[in-house]
C-alpha cells in the first residue's frame, strides 16, 4: 500500500469525497473543501515522481469544478493513489 505523504493526503481527499458519496457524516462537505484537499495533494513534489499522478489529481480537481458526481471524483483519486502504488512510492 502506498504510504508516503502524498498517499496520505490523497486518502484524506478520498475520505472527504466518500463521505459525500455515501451521504455519511453530520456535517455537509462542500466542493470547496474537496477541491482544497486535492490542491493540498498537488502541492507535494512527490506527485511528480510517478507518472500520471499529477494528471489524475488535475482530472479530479476539474471534475469537482465541473460538478461531476462524487463517485467520479473518488474514482479519479483512487486512480492517483493506485498510480503511486504502481510507481513504488511505499
Amino acid at each position, binding site marked *: 500500500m502506498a504510504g508516503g505523504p502524498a498517499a496520505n493526503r490523497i486518502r484524506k481527499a478520498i475520505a472527504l469525497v*466518500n463521505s459525500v*458519496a455515501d451521504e455519511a457524516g453530520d456535517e455537509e462537505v462542500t466542493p470547496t473543501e474537496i477541491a482544497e484537499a486535492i490542491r493540498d495533494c498537488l502541492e507535494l513534489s512527490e506527485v511528480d515522481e510517478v507518472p*500520471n499522478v499529477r*494528471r*489524475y489529481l488535475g*482530472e479530479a480537481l*476539474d*471534475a469537482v469544478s465541473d460538478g*461531476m*458526481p462524487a*463517485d*467520479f471524483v*473518488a*474514482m*479519479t483519486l*483512487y*486512480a492517483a*493513489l*493506485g*498510480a503511486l*502504488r*504502481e510507481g513504488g512510492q511505499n
Partner: protein
Amino acid sequence: MGSPHRVRALPGGARLVTESMPERHSTSVVFMFAGGSRLEDERLAGVSHFIEHLYFKGTRRRPSSKEIADAIEGVGGFINASTDKELTAYWARVPSEHTELGLDVLFDIVANSRLDPADVERERMVILEELRMYQDQPQDYVQNLFEELIWPGHPLGRDIAGTEESVSRLSRDDILEYADARYRLPNLVIGAAGSLDDDDTLALVSKGLSLREGLDGVLAALPPSPLDGPRVLIRRRETEQAHICLGARAFSYLHPDRYALDLLNTVLGEGMSSRLFLNIRERLGLAYDVHSFTQKHRDTGYLGVYIGVDPKKAVDAVNAAMAELRSLGESEVSADELARAKEFTKGRLRLELETTNGVAFWLTYQEVLLGEIKSIEEELALVDAVTAADVKRVADELLSGTMQMSVIGPFSRDSAFRLAIGA
C-alpha cells in the same frame, strides 16, 4: 483420443474427417460450413445466424421444430448449432447405434429446410429479443463494444447476430439467396468421432450428401484496416459494477507465435493462479472478476482483459492491469510459472478432447479453418517448444500496439480512462 483420424474427399469438394473412438458409447457428428458473420456486408449483418435459427424450424420431412428435436431426443441424443465469425456448425451427439439417424437429421436441416415465411417472421422477433437481452448483460455486451473498437467498421467488429436494424430489414429472399450461396459442398466439412467405422461412416455420408456444388456470390473476407490509435468507448449505464474490457490486437490462428500468445494469456489471466487474479483480486482487492482472453481469426486476433469492478476503483484497476501487462514485456516469466502455464494449457486441451463432441469439433474446426489437421501430440509439442523469451517478445510486440478499452458503468466522461491507456 482413439486411433488416428482420417480425412476423405467427398463429391463436390466437401470433406469428411473421422476418428474412431471404439471405447465410447456415443458418436458426435458436426457439419461445419466455412463462412460465418465476417462474410456479411452491413445490409446482410446477422443473416448467417438467422439461417442457423431457421434451420431448426422445420424441413419437408420433419415439418416442425418439435419433429426435429424429437428425432434426436427420442434416442437420448443432443442436437444444436452455433454461428461464429468464420464458420457455422450444426451438430448432433447420439448413441453410436443411431449415427445414421444423427447424420440424416443434419442432412435434412441443412438441405431441406422449409424456411416458411411465418417462421421467418417469428424467428425475427426471437432474434431481436436475443439482441436486446444481450445488451442487458453488461459483462457480455462490453466485449462486443471492445470488438467494435478492435475492428472498427469491419464485420469482425459486429455482433454475430447482426444489429436490430439489419435483422429487422432482412427479407426471406435475402435469407434464401444467402443460404443458397453459402451452403454448398466445397464449403462443407463433416466431422465424426466416436464408436464408428470409418468406411461405414463414409458410406452413410455419401448416401445423404445432397447439397449443391460450386459457389455463387462468394464474398471475399477483407482484412481489417490498421487502427488509428488508442481509443476508449464508454456506454453510460447506472450499473452497480463497472464492466471493462481492454486490450490490443494480437495474432491470427495461423501466426507462428500463437502458442506463445496462449501461454502469455494463461500467465496473465487464466484461472485463479494467474497474475491478474492474484494481484488485482487477491492482493489489491480491486475487482471481483478479472481475467484475460484471446480471440483469433484468419488474419487478426486480440488479447483482452475483462475487469468487473466497483466504479470508484475502475481506473485504479485498469492501471493495475496495465502494470501486469507491462511487467510481462519487461522481464521473462520464471521457469516455474511457464511450466505451470504449459501444463494448464495442455491439460485443458486434453480435457476438451475427452468427449466425442470435443474430438469431432477439434478435427472439423482444423480442417475448415486451417486446411490441415494436427494431432494432439503435435499440438502439445508446439506448446512445449515455447520459451520464456518467446512470451516476453510477444508481450513486447502486443504492448507496442494501440490499446483499446470499452467501459460500461455510471461514467459521464472518459478522461481518466483515456489517461490510463495513453489515449
